[in-house]
């Protein structure tokens, strides 16, 4: 197929890698935007999620946030935010991506703290720990696997959605796809798609390993079919009464 051949040639041109606006440049932009977005989302979602989980309320809020975010197209935020007071530039793009990274972080932080065995919590209380100590010494350490799972989902999703920033000319690896479509150069389209997909799979693999490391050994061998905590909103939609989480 000629597109494959064209993509091969395009990828083999060193100038396409090192030119200003080339692959290396766009990769840097891509990673910078993703990292900023995930960081911003963590700053908001973790304190809120952990706080709500600690108090044991606000589960409804978590569900609502997650459901609404599902219905809003990323493209809409990406085009609307730069036209507000944020102005053109990284801030608007980062915020647009961060908004979609919040739900998985929030949901997992909430669930992680919430899922701590009540008996463990009682025991901690009985030992005389204050509310704050229970949170920092008992609940948070036990919630780490969930926090890691949420982080992984949010990060992979952000790296994937930053691709769309190219549609509004903000760069990132998606730029080659949009540029290729614009020029009807299917080789470039294919090469751009390949680079983007590879980056996402790579980030996913690295973070999956990191999540494994963050999870204590005893908790690693979960039942294979237990719903994974980070499956976004699967277990969060207004769950049918048969009980999604019958585990």
């Amino acid at each position, binding site marked *: 197929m000629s597109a494959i051949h064209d993509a091969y040639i395009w990828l083999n041109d060193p100038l396409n890698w090192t030119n200003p606006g080339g692959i290396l440049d766009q990769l840097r932009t891509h990673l910078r935007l993703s990292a900023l977005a995930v960081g911003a989302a963590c700053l908001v979602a973790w304190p809120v999620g952990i706080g709500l989980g600690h108090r044991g309320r606000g589960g409804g809020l978590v569900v609502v946030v997650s459901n609404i975010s599902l219905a809003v197209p990323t493209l809409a935020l990406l085009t609307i935010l730069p036209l507000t007071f944020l102005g053109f530039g990284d801030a608007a793009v980062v915020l647009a991506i961060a908004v979609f990274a919040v739900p998985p972080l929030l949901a997992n932080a909430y669930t992680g703290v919430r899922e701590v065995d009540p008996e463990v919590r009682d025991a901690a209380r009985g030992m005389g720990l204050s509310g704050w100590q229970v949170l920092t010494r008992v609940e948070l350490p036990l919630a780490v696997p969930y926090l890691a799972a949420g982080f992984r989902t949010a990060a992979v999703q952000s790296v994937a959605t930053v691709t769309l920033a190219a549609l*509004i000319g903000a760069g990132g690896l998606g730029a080659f796809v949009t540029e290729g479509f614009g020029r009807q150069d299917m080789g470039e389209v294919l090469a751009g798609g390949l680079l983007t997909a590879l980056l996402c799979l790579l980030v996913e693999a690295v973070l999956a390993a990191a999540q494994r490391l963050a999870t204590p050994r005893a908790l690693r061998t979960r039942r294979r079919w237990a719903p994974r905590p980070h499956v976004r909103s699967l277990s969060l939609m207004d769950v049918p*009464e048969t009980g999604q989480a019958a585990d």
Partner: protein
Amino acid sequence: MSFLAVTYLVEDPPGNPWFSWRYVRDNAGQIEEALREHVGLTVSAVVIAAAIALPLAVLAHRVRWLSGPILALSGVLYTIPSLALFAFLAPFMGVSASTVRVGLVLYALLVIVRNALTGLRQVSSDALDAAHGMGYGSLGRLLRIELPLALPSIVTGLRLATVSTVALTTVGVVAGHGGLGQLILGGFRNNYYKAEIFTGAVLCVALALVLDLLLAGAGRLATPWSRRR
């Protein structure tokens, strides 16, 4: 001076409002066409995906060793950004609406398979034992016991798939068939025409909500037993 200020306001209404009836009225045809394409792409993608996903889920449920690969494959596919998926399809399928549709089907497929499989797995073994004891064969058990009991989960999957497909369809704009995405990006490229962007975005969210409510209603009707309790 105040007179001048008033004329200024009258003659030059805020140049680029977020919402304008005038834009909607003047471009009703274009908006309707975009909405029509959006609904068409979303509905056809979810219907095709469901038609493939449900048998696939049943198969994966029956043939144990198949569910591992199916779930792993769906996980990998879900990691790939939509823009990249369209980029993989377009060189071979051309830049057309069916390219966008195939991409949407693939994503919707994953969500539906995962949820249907979860639902099938959650059917309690007591219910299965009882069915066995009552003399149900394997097909009867599937149709009369397992699928109905998995229905709430299947409906959840359909709702998730529908809502995310509505949002995802906008990305089809890269191939020139993004439904309401054409308005959103079109407005952005058309000198940041806010009214066009906003109309597209609002219709998109509204469409997702309407379709979600319809499916939720249908789900309730189909599972009368789950309402009581």
